């Protein structure tokens, strides 16, 4: 009787399933570089028992968590360790105002909109030493950091002017959640995706309404804003999936993970009906090739040696294989698969003065591996890993989609997929 009643133990985020094996702590990038952080087991399931007794037992060291989710990947008992830590942070900071610095870092889209208008000025100003010093001392944004350059033209502006008209002509269609980075900083990645998808017979469309996915808002404690934006995004995604029968592609692993997994677990946004329709572009394309629905033809003379870095949220989804296998299809590409180590930036974490040294210490192993790999560039699916690796190794970092678009023989591919002008 007793056992039958107890067959299924249900605790929030499975925290009771923890058997204290401590594997999570051995893979935690933060615990590896500082004794100030007690590690995921202590910060998560252990601390949770005390926080249930009294919220005053919240440990401020939990702010050191990167939310990289490597603990969850390692856990043999399915405990949502990082979610437990994030929820505890959420409860502890709910109702408190975020600092100006955190609000600024978190509002990637607002900052982007303003910076696009004055891109040359913004880029020049953000790069100046006096500006950096002011940000370092007044706003506690580390002086070593360089803000990603802002583009003069937003991706959406380019798309509407130069691409939108042609998209309806294709036989198949997808929507594209471009995210803040593509829109404000690096429209080329979006352009590469459009080029690639068009070449294999897919029209690309924007969502009715897209807002920042909110990953940085969650990390900086701006939960209410994250919930508002998340609901807007899921509404738009729902329209795309149900009304237009278009799956939604992304080119950022963190946006993808956030919308698929953090929306329901952190923000309570129901997305079960459309979750499987939110897909990373590399995974979508890999599956099309694998199912022989499309063909990719690559340039004959293409020759590069590139290292692939698995972003943390990519590892959490377990999707790095799709990007890696897709890149391996390029005949002239010599791909080095790096050991799975965190780069240390974790979105806005590494931008903060108090985290800079820790951030670089976490990334040190990866940076050394990259140097040892003797490559000309690094591929990764996450834009913040890109900034961190570019700053810390001086090698260029590219999204696999851009590498594919670059290596693809567009004309031959169009013909192979029977697309005429």
């Amino acid at each position, binding site marked *: 009787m007793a056992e039958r009643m107890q067959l299924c133990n249900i605790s929030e985020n499975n925290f*009771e399933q923890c058997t*204290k094996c401590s594997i999570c702590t051995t893979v935690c990038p933060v615990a590896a570089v500082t004794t100030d952080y007690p590690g995921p087991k*202590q910060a998560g399931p252990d601390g949770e028992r005390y926080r249930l007794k009294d919220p005053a037992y919240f440990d401020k060291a939990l702010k050191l968590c990167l939310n990289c989710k490597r603990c969850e990947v390692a856990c043999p008992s399915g405990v949502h360790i990082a979610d437990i830590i994030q929820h505890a942070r959420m409860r502890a900071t709910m109702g408190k105002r975020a600092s100006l610095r955190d609000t600024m870092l978190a509002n990637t889209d607002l900052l982007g909109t303003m910076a696009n208008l004055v891109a040359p000025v913004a880029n020049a100003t953000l790069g100046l030493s006096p500006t950096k010093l002011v940000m370092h001392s007044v706003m506690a944004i580390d002086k070593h950091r360089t803000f990603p350059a802002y583009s003069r033209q937003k991706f959406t502006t380019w798309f509407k002017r130069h691409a939108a008209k042609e998209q309806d002509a294709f036989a198949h269609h997808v929507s594209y959640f471009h995210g803040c980075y593509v829109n404000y900083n690096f429209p080329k990645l979006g352009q590469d995706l459009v080029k690639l998808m068009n070449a294999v017979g897919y029209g690309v469309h924007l969502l009715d309404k897209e807002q920042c996915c909110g990953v940085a808002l969650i990390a900086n404690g701006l939960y209410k804003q994250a919930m508002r934006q998340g609901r807007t995004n899921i509404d738009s995604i729902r329209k795309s999936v149900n009304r237009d029968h278009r799956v939604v592609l992304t080119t950022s692993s963190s946006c993808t993970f956030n919308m698929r997994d953090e929306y329901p677990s952190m923000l309570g946004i129901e997305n079960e009906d459309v979750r499987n329709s939110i897909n990373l572009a590399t995974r979508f394309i890999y599956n099309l090739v694998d199912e022989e629905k499309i063909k990719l033809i690559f340039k004959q003379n293409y020759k590069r040696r590139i290292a692939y870095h698995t972003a943390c949220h990519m590892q959490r989804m377990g999707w790095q294989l799709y990007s890696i296998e897709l890149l391996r299809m390029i005949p002239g590409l010599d791909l080095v698969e790096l050991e799975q180590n965190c780069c240390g930036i974790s979105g806005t974490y590494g931008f903060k003065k108090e985290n800079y040294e820790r951030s670089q210490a976490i990334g040190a192993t990866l940076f050394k591996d990259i140097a040892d790999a003797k490559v000309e560039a690094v591929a990764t699916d996450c834009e913040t890993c890109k900034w961190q690796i570019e700053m810390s190794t001086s090698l260029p970092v590219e999204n696999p989609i851009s590498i594919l678009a670059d290596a693809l023989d567009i004309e031959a591919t169009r013909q192979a997929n029977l697309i005429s002008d």
Partner: protein
Amino acid sequence: MVTNDIYNKEYDVIIVGGGATGAGTARDCALRGLSVLLVERNDYSTGATGRNHGLMHSGARYAVTDGESASECISENMILRRIARHCVEETDGLFITLPEDDLQYQQTFVEACQRAGISADIIDPEEARRIEPAVNPQLIGAVRVPDAAIDPFRLTVGNLLDARLHGAETLNYHEVEGLIINQNRVEGVKLLNKLNGERIEVRSRVVVNAAGIWGQRIAQTAGVNISMFPARGALLIFGHRVNNMVINRCRKPANADILVPDDTVCVIGTTSDRIPIETVDDMRVTREEVDVLLKEGVKIAPSLATTRIIRAYAGVRPLVASDDDPSGRSISRGIVCLDHAKRDGLESFITITGGKMMTYRLMGEIATNAVCAKLGNTAPCVTANQPLPGSEEDGPNQGDLTKRYSFGQRAAIGRHGSLAARIEKDNDIDNALVCECEGVTVGEIKYAVHQLHVHNLVNLRRRTRVGMGTCQGKLCSCRAASLMGEFSHDVKRAQEDLAAFLDERWKGMRPVAWGDTLREAQLTASIYEGLCGLDTAVNLQGKEDVQ
């Protein structure tokens, strides 16, 4: 903690029994200026004191059936909130009426509470669900009472510490094998030192028998008959708190009708079965008991059905038999103080028994009054007003978890109150966690080992909560054993202690070993036996259990 001339010395009073009652009596006697020796056959608080709910009764539970006990409870409840702040968590309690219960009883209950001076406010079921979300949502009535949670280990140690501060001496692992009797007068006790096998005699002007259910045996050695009424109760510990208020059933006391939030866990209990006096040392919990506790427990808080149980344990209520009630529940929890000079013609021998952990202080006061009357001491009792060490007004306490303390330091303040200031915390090693589930640091272990009479890991657990979390000692026991070995310079003993501790942890897990608790136990076994070979390094067979 005992002077070398223990053999030559004559104490004013020897107290037999290191539970809450013995400790409270020792404290009271010491505060009134008597020279005191307390002896305990095992560790402190190993009997009924350490084997109950950890409930600080408001008295409401006894209001209908035993008004006198109820009044004692509420009076002591208010005193303990003042003098033992660091042992008490002021949770308040609910008495809930479920659809299967008679709502009429609520009125009877509230009136009885009022007669006993216990505040009992009828609240709306909706309000009850709001203030205690774990409560069975089907409840049809609720009464709010000033129940609370109390840690009996800390309470006992707090009393012993204060007794020692006032000159008392205390010995654990010393078993009374007999009383020294001269003519019709008790003049001391014959002791067996269970740690080294030595036998000694110690003299005193009065002996107080505060040995709980085992008091019957102590009295028997002097030819005095006390007829105890052993009523056994089993309890289950869940892996985390599901409730933050004590929840009781508003009906006549029955099986498994109280759920108490204790520290990081919650405890459901109890059963009640009369057992023969010969079996009071058998603390094994049966499958039937587990079934009953779960079946009734889920009626109080449905989430218990899906919450991990980490241990089961049992205790024996030291009631004094006065009638033939087979359930043992309608019997009075009343305090019984026997002056054996009047009762049995044996001078200088007092038994204090009955009662409950809740009224330990009052029992101590009553026993001390009896001792003082014999010795002609007229000092007044001050235990109701003087805070225990750790509960002084100044210094950090449970309500003052300021951010400048680390997690482990804050957990220690929660356990030791102002005494946490004595825990070393100036370097990384002292701040390192030994027990990660319960937040016990190296510094806290040093403090406990050196100042709180710790001989082994089980003692250490009672003083600090080492090994009381969900992993039941998997990660901390080897670290703690290593520290103990370092202090004692005895690796062999530390190894045996480690094996014995893990064995003791497993005993409590065995009755509930399924699901995650079984997974946990198997991982522990794999580490210590499979990987480290502890079972081949140490042979526990034939070792006397001196936990």
